[in-house]
């Protein structure tokens, strides 16, 4: 029982990341009808927002180390600590959550620039062309990041408040041996709240209503005199922010490097397909489902029966779903049927 709960917890943070990326992919696909292979790169750019803010905050200067008296010793002290003392240290440790403030405008800008600058020229081109050009863009973005940050992963720390583990078992009254890193729980709740916000935005605002109407029938909405293209561009920006934030908050769990986006992208596509192309709830459901199933498959008990299953479970499920229920779990009829 404990083991099962632990595996579900393990799946939740990964599932959260899958769900957020898949949500963005589905939003873009549902509104603009574009298959965006560069979406993983947005996830990575978000992660590197956190890295760069951390770099900026820890910009340091060499000062004389007063504790060493025998000889001249120097140590690196970040400017922030020099100027603000204790507060500076705390601020630096909060760099990952703080970078959300930086990432939202940056990712929104990148998303809008991408849509206006490149992708809008591809609406009338075949899907294969869209796949290819966004694939090229993904390579370019990845290489730019590699050139500016290097090829090594950049581990990020979490604020002291969230570091360490929580005794989840005691919370549910299940015994004391279920302990779990707090940050992963934070990530889960963070992704849930982002998902909630996206759905609320689409469901309860006028803007969201227009977007949903446009997803259902673009031409009619245009005939009513609404500039749907403009709203769809903003949706693209939003999708970029969503996956950027997903990447940013994931940095303490998995140190980001330049190809983290590609790794997540392939899986997120599978998630979208399993959930049903164009279905937002499907993307979220499939994201968590596959995340949890993946962590179950990596249990030793399962692995001893079916060796290697942890490596392929997601692809296996995708294949079965596509063959048995080609529309995906919650896919609507008529959306990208061929």
């Amino acid at each position, binding site marked *: 029982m404990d083991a099962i709960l632990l595996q579900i917890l393990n799946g939740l943070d990964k599932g959260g990341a899958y769900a957020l990326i898949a949500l963005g992919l589905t939003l873009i696909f549902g509104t603009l009808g574009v298959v965006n292979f560069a979406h993983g790169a947005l996830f990575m750019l978000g992660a590197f927002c956190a890295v760069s803010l951390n770099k900026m905050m820890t910009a340091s200067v060499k000062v004389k180390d007063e504790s060493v008296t025998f000889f001249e010793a120097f140590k690196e002290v970040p400017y922030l600590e020099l100027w603000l003392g204790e507060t500076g240290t705390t601020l630096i440790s909060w760099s990952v959550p703080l970078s959300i403030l930086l990432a939202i405008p940056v990712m929104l800008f990148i998303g809008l620039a991408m849509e206006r600058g490149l992708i809008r020229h591809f609406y009338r081109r075949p899907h294969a062309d869209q796949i290819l050009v966004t694939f090229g863009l993904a*390579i370019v973005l990845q290489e730019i990041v590699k050139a500016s940050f290097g090829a090594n992963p950049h581990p990020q720390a979490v604020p002291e408040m969230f570091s360490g583990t929580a005794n989840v078992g005691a919370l549910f009254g299940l015994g004391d041996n279920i302990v779990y890193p707090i940050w992963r729980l934070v990530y889960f709740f963070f992704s849930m709240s982002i998902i909630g916000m996206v759905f609320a935005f689409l469901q309860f605002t006028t803007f969201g209503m227009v977007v949903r109407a446009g997803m259902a029938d673009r031409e009619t909405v245009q005939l009513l005199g609404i500039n749907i293209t403009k709203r769809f561009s903003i949706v693209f920006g939003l999708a970029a922010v969503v996956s950027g934030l997903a990447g940013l908050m994931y940095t303490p769990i998995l140190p980001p490097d330049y190809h983290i986006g590609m790794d997540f992208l392939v899986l997120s596509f599978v998630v979208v*397909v399993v959930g049903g192309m164009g279905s937002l709830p499907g993307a979220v459901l499939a994201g968590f489902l596959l995340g949890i199933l993946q962590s179950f498959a990596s249990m030793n008990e399962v692995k001893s029966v079916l060796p*290697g299953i942890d490596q392929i479970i997601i692809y296996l499920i995708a294949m079965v779903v596509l063959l048995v229920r080609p529309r995906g779990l919650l896919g609507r009829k008529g959306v990208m049927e061929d």
Partner: protein
Amino acid sequence: MNTVATKKKDNLMVLIFAAVVLSMPVWLQPFGAAYPDLMQKFVIFGLFAVGFNILFGQTGYLSFGHAAFIGVGSYATVWVFKLYTMNIVPAILFGVLVSGVFALVIGFICLRRTGIYFSILTLALAQMSYNLAYSVLTPITNGETGLQLSLDDPRAWDAAQVQGEGIPATNFFGMEMSAWDGLFGFYVCAAVLILGFYISVRITRSSFGSMLRGIKTNQQRMTYTGLNTRPYALSAFVISGMYAGLAGSLMAAVDPLAGAERMQWTASGEVVLMTILGGVGTLIGPVLGAAVIKYFENIFSAINTSVLADFYSFLPDGLIDIFVGVSALFVGKGWHLTLGLMFMLVVIFLPGGIMEGIDRIKNRFAKKPQQD
């Protein structure tokens, strides 16, 4: 269309193609690319792209998992080297056979869907094989180390020959692949490429080929005429999978080892790029694209900052550093950035690839006399 004339034209094209490929060691000299290693790459990847084009160019199915067949072909070939004989002919035949069977299975699953679903399915399956090659299948694939020959391999059919010291080299009925300073290996690969190219021309011109193009143009209409398109698409998939397997086998034949990194999906992306860059659906385009990419990969990744500094030495001092700094992003380890940019530019401005570019230039010159 006059079919006899087309056939003559095709034969002429294949002959010219053969002449160009076989004379590569001569005319590549001034480009600094006339060494066997690189020319083998041109030829092998050209073959891979020709095969990929049969699927993507003819039927319009965009597979993102073709590198998996390269991997399967290489592994199968190396196993024949290990177990039976160092002669490349049975090894390559076995590699092609295995990858064909593998393609049949994968194609059977993937071709139940079309469009983007097909791309994602092939991507998923290829990624799955890649992961399996690294984990469970380690007894077959030797995991991260890659499959290599070793001294205590049985090599059952070669036992009659005298076992010299060290690992024997791959050979073509006794003629070592590395003979003639490696040129022999190149000529073997080139012969295979010419044969493969000829077959692809024949396929394109056959009624089977027009059936495939019918699938690309409008599959629904093909179905409405009472035709089951799936066997045709599946045959195209298997054929192109066998071409990929053949390319993988040749890789193993010139350099007898096989690793899972050949199966990664970026490798699949590369062959897509080669085909696009050369010209999707054209006959020569894919080979051209493969050669251009491998050539620039080789040239660009060898350039470093000191070479750049030499190149810009005519500029005033202050400017040199700036130019070198900017260009350094695109060469050496940054070669992938150039590749990505090239990819985007081609898709945006020249969707028909180099062949379309050539056509455009031709038309421009051809039209002028008419206007006069």
